[in-house]
């Protein structure tokens, strides 16, 4: 298989993703700036006197045409300048940057936990009889149907208020991460386990598994060596959703547990129409999406040789 062909293919996918990211940021920019007069209102706050709005508009460059503002926005982006928060009056990069870490920690911990839980459950229950099937599918259904914030509330009640094992709020120590990570991970794990297990069961029905059994290979070895890899294909497809879902879910989780982080920043920015901050978050999400989809594409090629040839 020629490596050059593969590289070209990955690059072209990356290119498409970047175009998509650019389009989504542009759409967000246009939508947010099309709010008539709103931005000036926000900047003015409670103060009001004749000429104030015009002065503000002039100061923030809001009096110019939309294309001019957009060109300016792109130019500043190219220099790494994300603008200044309307509400906090601080550079956006500082506002977002300082809150990035706790969110990434949370999303990463929850993602890892979800993958481990889902993988373990699927390996242990796929194709192991009706009882295991029923038990696993019920567990998955309940986990995937439970809202993150309710799970968080239940965990808080049980482990923070009643048992006092974990802190109620904050992100200061590792044990403040435990409950939020579990709350965020369980629904994701339910979903992932469902896809993984169903894919494994489908694979176990395929003729080649009989061939492998006829070689004397044991049931667990069949699952690890052969079946899991097949089941990864649909699971990887889900990966894009999951990464997005973890980030979106982190917003809610942070609110439940009173954790600092991007979620709190985003929520605040949305409620106060702090356009530069919202745009920065959109840009960040779009970039993560680009990175994730490119990575997943490469993963596909690694998993399935059939995709490398055509």
């Amino acid at each position, binding site marked *: 298989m020629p490596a050059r062909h593969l590289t070209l293919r990955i690059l072209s996918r990356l290119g*498409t993703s970047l175009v998509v990211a650019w389009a989504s940021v542009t759409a967000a920019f246009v939508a947010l700036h099309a709010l008539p007069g709103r931005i000036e209102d926000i900047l003015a706050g409670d103060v009001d006197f004749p000429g104030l709005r015009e002065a503000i508009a002039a100061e923030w460059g809001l009096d110019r045409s939309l294309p001019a503002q957009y060109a300016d926005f792109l130019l500043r982006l190219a220099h790494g300048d994300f603008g200044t928060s309307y509400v906090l009056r601080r550079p956006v990069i500082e506002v977002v940057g300082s809150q990035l870490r706790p969110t990434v920690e949370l999303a990463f911990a929850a993602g890892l936990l979800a993958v481990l839980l889902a993988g373990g459950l699927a390996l242990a229950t796929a194709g192991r009889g009706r009882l295991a099937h029923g038990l696993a599918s019920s567990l998955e259904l309940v986990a*995937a*149907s439970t809202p993150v*914030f309710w799970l968080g509330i239940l965990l808080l009640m049980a482990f923070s208020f009643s048992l006092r094992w974990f802190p109620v709020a904050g992100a200061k120590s590792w044990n403040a991460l435990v409950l939020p990570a579990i709350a965020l991970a369980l629904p994701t794990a339910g979903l992932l386990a469902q896809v993984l297990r169903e894919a494994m069961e489908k694979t176990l029905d395929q003729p080649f598994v009989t061939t492998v059994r006829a070689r004397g290979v044991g049931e667990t070895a069949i699952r690890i060596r052969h079946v899991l890899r097949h089941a990864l294909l649909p699971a990887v497809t889900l990966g894009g*959703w999951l990464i*997005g879902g973890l980030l979106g879910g982190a917003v*809610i989780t942070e609110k439940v547990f009173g954790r600092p982080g991007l979620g709190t920043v985003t929520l605040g920015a949305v409620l106060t129409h702090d356009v530069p901050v919202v745009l920065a978050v959109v840009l960040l999400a779009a970039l993560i999406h680009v990175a994730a989809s490119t990575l997943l594409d490469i993963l596909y090629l690694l998993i399935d040789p059939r995709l490398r040839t055509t």
Partner: protein
Amino acid sequence: MTASPHSAPAAVALSTEGLVGTVASVPTSVLRATRFRPRHPPRFILAAGFLAMLALVALGPGLFTRYDPLTGDFSETLKGPSWVHPFGTDRLGRDVLARTLYGTRYSLLIGLAGMAVSAAAGVLLGVLAGLRNRLLDEAVSRLFDVLSSFPGVLLAMLVVTFLGQGMANIAIAVGIAGIPKFGRVVRAQTQLVRDADYVTHAAIYGLGRSRIFLRHVLPNVLVAVPVIATIYIGNTILVVSGLSFLGLGPQPPTPEWGVMLAESRDVLRVAWWPGVFPGLAITLTVIAFSIVGGVLQKRFEGRIA
């Protein structure tokens, strides 16, 4: 992509599409068929019964409780579950059962409205993309990509930023966030039907293009829509309640389940009941929709080979 971490489970089986225009081996649609099961499994009857009851409650919550969901009795604040107040009372002395029952209206209504937005746009765009026109397909697919490049919650938040908070706006926001997911499944379904032998054969037998589309393609795409919708509605309800919890949807004192849970957070230390029952209602509703959707899907797969 548009999912919150808690998408309706069966939704995924439907939508392995996404990234995988390239993956030949991954099935892309609802209509992979094997079994035909004519009888209702017990879980289906239970779930459907629960949903029927929910519908009744949503139509006339007053029939099931004598308390008002908005006015509280200040002598009865934060009372635990009892015969008088089976779900207890909240910190304003309002009956939690009454609020939960009245909340059914909001959650189902917003969920259905959001679903309707996703379905209407998703079917239109999905069918267009699924037809044999590469340019159209490319344009619509990229539009789906743009919409799904944000996490669903974030996209909905963005729409709320634009439209402002409130019940109708949140339905629109969640609806827009659900378009690419719905649209992709419809697109896959359209392609499957479009390439099906019976469509090719209709051409051999001399049917015109528009007649083939109206008689064979469109009906076989549309029969799938209620199934897809049932599966997705659970997810919509989850996202809606999440956004309400964040304070982006209906505002207090509206007895919406997400709003109630947000309010309960302040009293968790002393009272568990306001934080338990609305969440239970959300979870059970989502589970019921998933079960019904899943069974419908299986039945549907059996129907269409």
